[in-house]
């Protein structure tokens, strides 16, 4: 797993992809920080994070589009299949590499927080709550994107597919309000990433939200492992 993690992390920065992802994230984070904190003269970072939530949904598929599909296209998956490693180790290695790149990008918000604390007293509980929440949402979206990427050889399809599925999961609560059956509506709302994420934004820490995101991530990673293993069968 370590070997794959290292290779994938290097691959992000051997190609422009990793730099572009981090740079675009910094651009948005910087702009929102300027707009909602510096320009508005506020120490409240909630708006920054809520905007970054949308940015994350758009950007994560770019991070994950090549993770599985490229190996399939260039036939390098054969190297992984013939190596004495399990499919789980392969998928997890790739997942952690993407998660680290994402964390690198997200870390800019902590820098913004530090800058704020030079001039005011920001609520660190809220900032950290947002930060952890956004990281968990990102990890789940990475797992979703990886699964889509495992289904195709085409990176564009992987990106668009990852974006659509991610967006669908985020907007489940909007769907919930359209459903008349109350039990189903409640289920959809509870499954919505947006609803779950909003709990973090209040600066409260609910174990069920943590479990929700971790188990969703694990579920999609498990599906990805199955999709990768399936290649041995056909």
């Amino acid at each position, binding site marked *: 797993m370590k070997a*794959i993690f290292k290779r994938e992390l290097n691959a992000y920065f051997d190609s422009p992809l990793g730099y572009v992802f981090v740079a675009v994230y910094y651009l948005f984070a910087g702009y929102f920080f300027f707009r909602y904190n510096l320009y508005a003269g506020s120490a409240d970072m909630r708006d920054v994070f809520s905007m970054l939530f949308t940015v994350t949904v758009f950007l994560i598929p770019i991070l994950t589009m090549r993770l599985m599909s490229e190996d399939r296209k*260039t036939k390098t998956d054969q190297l992984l*299949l*013939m190596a*004495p*490693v399990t499919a789980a180790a392969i998928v997890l290695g790739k997942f952690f590499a993407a998660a680290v790149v994402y964390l690198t990008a997200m870390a800019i918000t902590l820098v913004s927080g530090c800058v704020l604390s030079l001039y005011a007293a920001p609520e660190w509980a809220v900032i950290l709550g947002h930060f952890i929440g956004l990281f968990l949402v990102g990890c789940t979206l990475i797992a979703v994107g990886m699964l889509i990427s495992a289904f195709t050889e085409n990176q564009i399809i992987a990106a668009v597919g990852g974006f659509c599925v991610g967006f669908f999961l985020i907007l489940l609560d909007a769907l919930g309000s359209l459903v008349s059956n109350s039990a189903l509506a409640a289920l959809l709302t509870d499954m919505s990433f947006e609803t779950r994420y909003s709990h973090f934004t209040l600066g409260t820490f609910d174990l069920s939200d943590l479990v929700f995101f971790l188990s969703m991530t694990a579920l999609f990673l498990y599906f990805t492992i199955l999709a990768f293993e399936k290649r041995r069968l056909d």
Partner: protein
Amino acid sequence: MIEIRDLHKSYGAKQALRGVSFAVEKGEVVGLLGLNGAGKSTTMNILTGCLCATSGTVLIDGVDIAKDPLAAKRRIGYLPEVPPLYVDMQVSAYLQFVWELKGLRGGAAERRKQLAAVAEKTGTAAVQKRLIRNLSKGYRQRVGLAAALLGDPEILILDEPTVGLDPTQIIEIRDLIAHLGEQHTVILSSHILSEVAAVCGRVVVIDKGVVVADGAPAALEASLQDNSSRVAVIAGTPQQVKAALEGLPELVSVTPLRQTEPGVWEYALQGAAGSDLRRPLFAALAAAQLPLLGARGAQVSLEDVFLQLVAPEQGRGAPPEKNTATGGEAQ
């Protein structure tokens, strides 16, 4: 060392393998021969654990690859048809990644030593710092081979290792494989017969998912060699020769091919299947006082063997002209 038992593989409705079985002993160099789509790559992918068989077993050194894939894979170095290279990496970085991926033990010093040894063996030492994307096909093949050799696996499986290379590269890779065959058990696939004949001590011919022949290249040739057809150079006109040979019960046909010198003709003689023409031919010509200046067998080459094996409906009792032609080239 390697034991394959009754391997079946279906891709949907298409049956790629229909009961392939053979065993490879330690130290053997075995050539897997077959036309494109015969099932060579499928067999190799199953052998190396890249693909699951529909049914059947593969034992690598007694370890079932389906039950304990990790242990079995550690014993194998595999070079697939398309070398699985990360083209954005430098050769040295790629080989180091493969080293780590294979979970090879040993400190940095040991790793450097092994990487250097493999680079030397495969002739990739000069390109270590180059990006794989900028390498020629021959060098990519070598890098793939270097990756397969890392960790010094006992078994090497090479899928069409010389395909797409230029003639000098083919000879170099072939020499390298012959050299590797001294220390490793090697299975290589090819549809090029000369390659298999040059490198392998044993040939397994696969056609339409079944093993149709298994043996040493020379033995395979011998099994199809027959003495029923000859090309003879006789000092006598076609009429004289026909008259002299008319009474021979073994002879089916006499065809004059060409006049080689004044009064001397070359004839294609076809005998009954399974007969030996040589002695009766000599005796009959001697009796008619027509000097037999030369005779050669219509020798079968490995190529003929192969064509007969993979196309039995047309191949059996191949037309004499074909055998004659090949025999002419062979001598």
